[in-house]
């Protein structure tokens, strides 16, 4: 195939393909990725990615995709299985409605990260924009996770119905950990924040609690995984000082109606 360089990492015997994405439209790029997967490649390295949307969209395969460059919107939307690593920033819509898999961004990410995601993990090394984790939900043993190394913008975890969001606040700037309207309409799941935040930042459907023993164990495990995958040093982060946001009700709008 054009622009594909084959290689294999012999220690693990993984079939790796490298693909030069420069100047290729997303449709063609995704077609190439699909056909490489069909030919049995287990790892695909995309070089020179520059804003192509929908990379990994709808893929249900157990494949690893490494992206060198900045992928466009809706990275890994509807995906169900793959592991994607971005060695740069990502744009909006990372992991939109994803069902399983892992997305690692070694940089910043834009707005609407993990919208409606049902399972899998998203690790963003630096900051995320507005509307992260809106309407995340868990289902049976599926529990979606988003860990943000930096800070998050407004509407974090709005309408959240399940899953775990962690914000570490390790950004270089001194802005607040989260924006306004955090957890508005939240009715399931949990948001962990590395430090106490002002109540004025919260939606009226959530309350602040101190992280307990189970939380700390869970956070330690997630932090280790996060650090391993993003390369960010989390040694200064102490889960014991974390707070968690929980919904006050699983049915925040149960009393809105008369019959």
């Amino acid at each position, binding site marked *: 195939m054009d622009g594909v360089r084959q290689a294999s990492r012999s220690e693990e015997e993984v079939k790796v393909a490298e693909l030069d994405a420069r100047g290729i439209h*997303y*449709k063609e790029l*995704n077609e190439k990725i699909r056909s490489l997967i069909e030919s049995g490649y287990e790892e695909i390295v995309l070089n020179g990615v520059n804003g192509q*949307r*929908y990379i990994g*969209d*709808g*893929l*249900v395969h157990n494949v690893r995709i490494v992206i060198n460059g900045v992928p466009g*919107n*809706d990275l890994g*939307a*509807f*995906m*169900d299985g793959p592991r994607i690593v971005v060695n740069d920033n990502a744009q*909006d*819509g990372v992991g*939109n*409605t994803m*069902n399983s898999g892992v997305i690692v961004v070694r940089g910043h990410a834009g707005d*609407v990260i993990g*919208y*409606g995601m*049902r399972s899998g993990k998203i690790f963003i090394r630096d900051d995320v924009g507005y*509307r992260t984790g*809106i*309407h995340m*939900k*868990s*289902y*049976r043993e599926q529990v979606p996770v988003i860990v943000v190394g930096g800070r998050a913008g407004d*509407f974090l975890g*709005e*309408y959240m*119905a*399940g899953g775990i969001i962690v914000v570490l606040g390790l950004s270089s700037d001194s802005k607040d950990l989260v924006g306004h309207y955090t957890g508005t*309409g939240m*009715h*399931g799941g949990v948001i962990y924040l590395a430090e106490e935040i002002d109540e004025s930042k919260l939606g009226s459907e959530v309350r602040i609690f101190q992280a307990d023993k189970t939380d700390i164990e869970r956070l330690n495990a997630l932090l280790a995984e996060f650090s391993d995958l993003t390369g960010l040093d989390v040694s200064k982060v102490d889960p014991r000082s974390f707070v968690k946001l929980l919904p006050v009700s*699983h*049915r*925040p*709008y*149960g*009393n*809105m*109606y*008369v*019959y």
Partner: protein
Amino acid sequence: MPDRFLPSEFIVNVDHQRCRRCKRCILNCGFGVFDFQNMTTADSSKCVACHRCVVFCPEEAITITRNPLAFREHASWDVGLRKAIWKQAQSPGMILTGMGNDKPWLNIFDHLLIDACQVTNPSIDPLREPMELRTYLGRKPARLEIEYDSQGKPVLRGAVENNIMINVPIIFSGMSYGSISLNAQRAIAIAAERLGTLMNTGEGGLHEELYPYANHIIVQCASGRFGVHSKYLNAGVAVEIKIGQGAKPGIGGHLPGEKIGREVSGTRMIPQGTDALSPAPHHDIYSIEDLRQLIYALKEATGYKPVSVKIATVHNVAAIASGIARAGADMIYLDGFRGGTGASPAIVRDHVGIPIEIAIAVVDEQLRSEGIRNMVSIIAAGGIRSSADVVKAIALGADAVAIGTAALVAMGCRLCQKCYTGNCSWGIATQRPELTSRLDPDWGAERLVNLVNSWSLEVKEVLGALGINAIESLRGNRDRLRSLGLDPATNEVLGVRPAGM
């Protein structure tokens, strides 16, 4: 003070001379009206006039009448308004209701008349000549370019977008598993397959048992993304992005936790017993550009299946539709303000949106004037009650119509408007197993097939009278409609001349 100011709306009367105490009414009523203490008793305050008991009483012993209780008449304070105040004064909250708008707004379909041929242009006899109702949904090329091969045979140049063929220009509208029962969805799926048309999952995901019908199913992707995953998106023939619904434009949906049992939770992929909250907007769509992004995300995820965008018809519908067409949608599903719902605040159902008739006409006109009508098929829904409405909707500019309420009525629905209670005695808008089991999917499917076949016969008959032999030639053919009793401004908006002109 009394707990309720509200008198019973209906009076249930059991004729004890006739009653043979079989207790069938007790089993049949989903609302718990009947009881048995030495004889059959009825608590009228619970009656919603769904007539299940009346139909199933073997002795015709039950009569239901409107409570004749006289309210002091007042021209500007109709009884409904006073009752709403009493309810809300008793407990705070929005009045919830089900089904479609029941207010006596002007129904434009009932003010449109269809033309017919006489003397100077011959009509066609559908008994003798073929009448084509087959319709293709999806994007059409702006023009066809034809080449001739070496044998001189014409061949089409360039690729044509994926289109979906339906045998009749009538599809079933999106009604989710959760708002209606699985048996009701099964009936609709079987009917869609037999008729060669389509059903729509609504926003509740696709139950495993319906996957075999996937070639006749449009899967919906709504703001809550319930049950949306790769396999689901790829199962159907098209994906629909649900932006809005005619009965509740601009608002989200709350399926209460009581209705999220094991099966519904499995299909929606959320835990049992939690409220299923659909946000009012899709939080990844705040603009036409964002809509385009989701349309193409879905196309990428499905190997470029057609994408429909469903909107409620609101004031600016023509401009919005133009944006949707340009965003890359293959179909626009217009849901008029009479469209049904499992649950909606009454204020929204009854007062928000515009009629489907107006929406079809202005959208068709706008897309034509921009030269982009070929880019999308228009599906009209929300108030299609008869084959006459089908003909008028298509003549106003729709490619096909979708029916929801009409389909439910065919399966027993009595428009009692209590769908939101989950107690539907007809086994339709309920998840209670003892109620859902009474709706036999095969029986329901047969009735739906009969209904659509009957309407098809009637549509063909009218096409013949119009001297047209294909439904395509009726599309947007507003010259074959005349209005009666509409004001000049409405005529102009509809692009229809008054009768006599």
